[in-house]
């Protein structure tokens, strides 16, 4: 009995929200996705990051049952979308990066229509729609026509649409691009809450500082391939060995410039946040700091430009460009 239980332990990720194995997709001669393999576990927020044209949206479309892979295998909630797309749609919520909406409808009608399209009963819709509108802070716009909503409000409505049928797998393609700071914080909290409820969340974004706060894991893609999958906690280490930009701010910028010039570092960009220095490794950076301080310059701030995720991103997607 006990042996059986041990044998039943899944060898791979049979219980993950999304499993992609060697997934490939071409459009004519363009290979948008070439052999991506990744796992998006339940209960976690996974970030999908990569440069423009890396194939993030194409992957999301395949996961959302809209596109079929040219090759490779997908399983969403254990089901292959090629075999049973309807079963996948039942449990998957998708928010596209385009904001196509029915402008003629009112906000409430819009959500109600999609709830109906997901076969929610009248009673369920009456309950779910207002509560979801409250969740995305659009309750006061319930009777407003969709076309009067701002970009960020439309984005929040699109998020509500993706959540209307309480999906167990959530695909968000650049959900934060038009959101104000407060809405971003709310999005982060919402995603964390959903993950805590066991939803598998895959979110793509270019705003890395945000992802750093909302994601548990990051999958780096470049030129149609997965170049790395990391826990966010591991990321600091990836950036370390690579050259990243550094920023330094001193009481007396003139004195700082002089010392830097002595070390051959001329022409850094001066920003309000400080002087941006060319890329260097952590070791080189700490040597530089010691030298500057040693020369008597009073340094106010010194650190890498961007978050660990950003550093890792730049390091990992370098080769693919």
């Amino acid at each position: 009995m006990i042996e059986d239980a041990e044998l039943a332990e899944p060898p791979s990720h049979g219980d993950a929200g999304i499993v992609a194995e060697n997934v490939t997709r071409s459009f004519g001669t363009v290979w948008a996705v070439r052999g991506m393999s990744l796992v998006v576990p339940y209960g976690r927020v996974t970030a999908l990051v990569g440069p423009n044209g890396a194939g993030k949206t194409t992957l999301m479309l395949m996961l959302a049952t809209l596109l079929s892979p040219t090759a490779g295998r997908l399983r969403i909630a254990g089901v292959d979308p090629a075999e049973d797309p309807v079963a996948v749609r039942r449990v998957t919520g998708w928010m596209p990066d385009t904001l196509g909406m029915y402008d003629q409808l009112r906000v409430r009608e819009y959500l109600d229509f999609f709830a109906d399209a997901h076969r929610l009963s009248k009673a369920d819709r009456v309950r779910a729609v207002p509560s979801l509108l409250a969740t995305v802070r659009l309750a006061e716009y319930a009777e407003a026509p969709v076309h009067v909503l701002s970009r960020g409000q439309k984005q929040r409505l699109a998020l509500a649409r993706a959540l209307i049928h309480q999906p167990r797998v959530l695909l968000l393609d650049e959900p934060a691009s038009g959101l104000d700071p407060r809405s971003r914080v709310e999005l982060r909290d919402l995603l964390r809450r959903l993950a805590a409820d066991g939803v598998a969340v895959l979110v793509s974004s270019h705003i890395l500082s945000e992802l750093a706060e909302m994601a548990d894991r990051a999958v780096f893609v470049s030129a149609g391939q997965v170049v790395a999958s990391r826990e966010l906690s591991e990321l600091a280490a990836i950036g370390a060995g690579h050259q990243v930009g550094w920023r330094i701010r001193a009481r007396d910028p003139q004195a700082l410039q002089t010392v830097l010039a002595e070390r051959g570092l001329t022409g850094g960009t001066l920003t309000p946040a400080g002087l941006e220095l060319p890329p260097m490794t952590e070791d080189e950076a700490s040597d530089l700091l010691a030298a500057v301080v040693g020369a008597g310059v009073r340094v106010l701030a010194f650190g890498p430009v961007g978050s660990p995720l950003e550093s890792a991103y730049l390091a990992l997607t370098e080769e693919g460009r």
Partner: protein
Amino acid sequence: MNASLRGIRLVAAHEFRMRLRTGRWKWLLGGFTLTMLAFTWILHAALDSSRGSYYNGVTIVRDHSSIGPQMFGVLMLFVLGLMLIISPALTSQSVNGDRERGTLATLQVTLLSPADIAIGKLLAGWSVGLVALGLSVPFVVWSLIEGGVGVLSALVTLAVVALLIGVICALAQALSALTSRSISSGMLSYVVTAALALGTVIVYFMALSLTAEQRTARVGADYLSEGTLHHPEDVWWLLAPNPFVVLADAAPALPPLRADNGAFVERSDDPLGSLRRTVRDATRPEDVVTCYNSGYTELDPPGSVPSCRDPFVEPPPVWPWGLGFDVLLGVGAVTVTIRRLRTPATRLGRGVRVA
């Protein structure tokens, strides 16, 4: 397919609601009604003034024979013509327009099936056409009041127009599913409609001229005539899908007129009937038709006597073929649309992005 009544109704109601809210329909229907009003008014006036009147020595006697059949026939052909102009626009952007706006994909990831989406959208477009058709009913009733045409005739004719609107809508929708740009499908759907309404006629006459054959015929007892004989019976089917032909042929025949001596005379006041006779005559060999036109005709080889049919026994109708073909075309179009809406999509049209 797995279309569900629930899904179709949901999509149709949703699409219809949005069409109502864009407000363009007010202009469409308003323009339609005004056009109908103006046309019917002028038609009625023209027919009314052409009624004969004569002076019998005491007073001017007006000929009170009915202008109903003529008014009804011309009106129905006009309604069909207008609907052929309106209908393509109702659905020619229904798929690629939604794709351009980015709303199609959001629909496709719900539990609505491709058939729900295709049929629901078609019904919404079609019903706008039916509303327009409904607005023409008062004018048709006016022509019925003029007398001479039965209510059944009117109902059958309107039903045929309604069906043809659906066919055109289905074709336009399929084009919108096949092309990536809504401008292309908009134009193509008018090309297809014109092909049905005008192209069939042109092709028919071109094909007819190809069937020409030189024949010697003996007219009367000893008069020999050299002539060209066509074989419309080989090419009549080219004309059958033409919407105007279907309409005229499907409209129930009016009772024949009798002359004073009791003989039947051809009605000249019935445009639908004339069109019907022309088309049905095309289904039988020309030589037989001429039997009653030019007395007696004997064709090569000399000595063979063609069997003359009674000219008032009409050949079998062609509309079941024509309408059947058109409806099949519509059903085929819906199937194409459904196939193009199927997801996950393996192939995309050139330049199409799903989202």
